[in-house]
């Protein structure tokens, strides 16, 4: 539904451009028509966004053409040097990481990476990391800390991979270790959820001073399908589960789990990736500037304090 709408909006925008061109070329005053069309477009777009169900956002977050981590790195950074391997077992292509220049400073960028086509997806395991991915991320975060460089992470995974090798090599330990390391890392960390924030596999690179989320990204303890299978005993109830889980950026801002929503173009990030990347870059720059002013002790104290507050309980 969201996609059909976005096509309709594109047509309206094209029509607007035509009208404006016509008006200036022929010197005819069409301001009334233009204004009417602009108002209509604004209103319909606002309605469309308001009408998006949570599961519509899930679909947008999983859209195959959505920008992935490497797309943001390409658009926002210079001097990208990818670093490979966890130094224990292998390189996990489901997580990419390396040095980059962002806004004139060196940063460590780490992110989940999905594939654009089947071949790349098989190599990248659809963006579902093994323990090696988390251990590579840990190594790179410590490297950033050693040289006093900030860490930027892009979160986009349906979850850490549930397989035999992953269990044998300690998937749980790898994620747990990252949570501990990130809680105490003496350099700024900003995480940005760009697509799917799938449970512990997402959190494993997302404990941060600031957590940003794209407007149509999702972040959840379990996929709506997984939740439906357990609690409703049918994966068909995923829409209902998505509603119950409250997994949209708007939900998470209200629950004070994230710090800011980065706006997307009306049809979703993939319709105008350059514009989306600009908005992400602007938000990262703003938060980074704030965090760079803090001493490491203060940074760690505030980060821990932030996570200590999280949750909802009553006390008798």
């Amino acid at each position, binding site marked *: 539904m969201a996609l059909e709408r976005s096509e309709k909006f594109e047509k309206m925008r094209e029509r607007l451009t035509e009208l404006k061109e016509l008006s200036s070329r022929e010197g005819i005053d069409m301001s009334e028509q233009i204004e009417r069309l602009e108002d209509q477009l604004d209103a319909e777009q606002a309605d469309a966004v308001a009408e998006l169900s949570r599961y519509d956002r899930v679909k947008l977050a999983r859209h195959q053409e959505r920008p992935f981590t490497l797309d943001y790195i390409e658009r926002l950074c210079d001097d990208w040097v990818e670093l490979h391997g966890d130094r224990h077992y292998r390189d996990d292509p489901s997580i990419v990481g390396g040095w980059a220049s962002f806004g004139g400073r060196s940063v460590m960028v780490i992110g989940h990476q999905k594939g654009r086509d089947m071949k790349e997806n098989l190599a990248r395991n659809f963006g579902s990391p093994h323990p090696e991915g988390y251990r590579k991320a840990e190594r790179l975060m410590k490297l950033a800390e050693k040289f006093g460089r900030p860490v930027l992470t892009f979160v986009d995974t349906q979850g*850490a*991979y*549930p*397989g*035999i090798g*992953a*269990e*044998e*090599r*300690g*998937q*749980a*330990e790898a*994620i*747990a*270790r990252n*949570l*501990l390391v*990130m*809680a*105490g890392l003496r350099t700024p960390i900003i995480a940005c959820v760009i697509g799917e924030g799938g*449970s*512990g596999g997402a*959190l*494993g690179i997302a*404990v941060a001073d600031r957590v940003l989320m794209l407007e149509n990204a999702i*972040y*959840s*303890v*379990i996929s709506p399908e*997984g*939740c439906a299978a*357990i*609690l*409703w005993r049918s994966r068909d109830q995923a829409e209902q*589960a998505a509603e*119950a*889980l*409250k*997994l949209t950026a708007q*939900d*998470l801002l209200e*629950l004070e*789990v994230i710090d800011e929503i980065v706006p997307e173009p009306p049809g979703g990030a993939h319709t105008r990736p350059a514009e989306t990347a600009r908005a992400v870059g602007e938000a990262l720059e703003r938060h980074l500037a704030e965090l760079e002013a803090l001493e490491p002790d203060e940074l760690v104290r505030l*980060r*821990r304090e932030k*996570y*200590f507050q*999280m*949750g*909802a*309980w*009553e*006390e*008798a």
Partner: protein
Amino acid sequence: MSWFKKPKQKITSQKRELPPDVWEKCDGCGEILYSGRLAENDHVCPTCGHHFRIDALTYAGLLLDEGFEEEFDTGLRSADPLGFVDSKSYRDRIEAASEEVGPEDAIRTGSGRVDGRQVKLGAMEFRFIGGSMGSVVGEKIRRLAERAVDERDPLIIVSASGGARMQEGIYSLMQMAKTSAALDRVADAGLPFLSILTHPTTGGVTASYAMLGDVILAEPGALIGFAGPRVIRETIRQDLPEGFQRSEFLLEHGMVDQIVPRGELKERVSVLLGHMC
């Protein structure tokens, strides 16, 4: 002429009704055991060594000289932040679990002594919504860790959990970060954290504090993993190897330090604390 004909005897298998609280059947070997004898043996089957599930306070009694001398934060209750309803409302689930198990949620925390040494202990309660970790479990662990730091006592947590409590949505996921951050404070203070894994320990609990022990002990035969076996089987569409994700499998793969039968647990904990305190 039918002297060689065997009289037909109907074979009946009579289901033996076990009087509750007196006899228990072992899930490991099927042996019928006298409850009193089982309790004396720390709820471990004397025939096959199967470890029966025991509750949080029983662990406190097992590990501490006098059980909990003080129990902490017993008044914390989940606030149902999402107003979560599936086939049943989360509030109803909490209420039912509170009535059946007690209202202290899926972990009991407190202080006590191990061979005279002061410790802070948390023991999870699997019967409370599968030992799932929501905001109350996270906050109780955070406070327990803070108390350990303030009073410079070692920290011990006995885990038994199916993972994060999905009825609390994103907050349950955030408890993984919260408890790990609390443990980082304990580590900074130079205090030992001993993690004891019991059947079962999976999901978000394994992927946070349970696997972060300075030393990790496991009870024999416990299921320990990140993903549950059913999810893995459905993902890879293959049968899982024998003994997969059991304590012995984790020891072999270098994920836990030792497997310790329940009867030896206190003694091992005591010796370990001696080395690390």
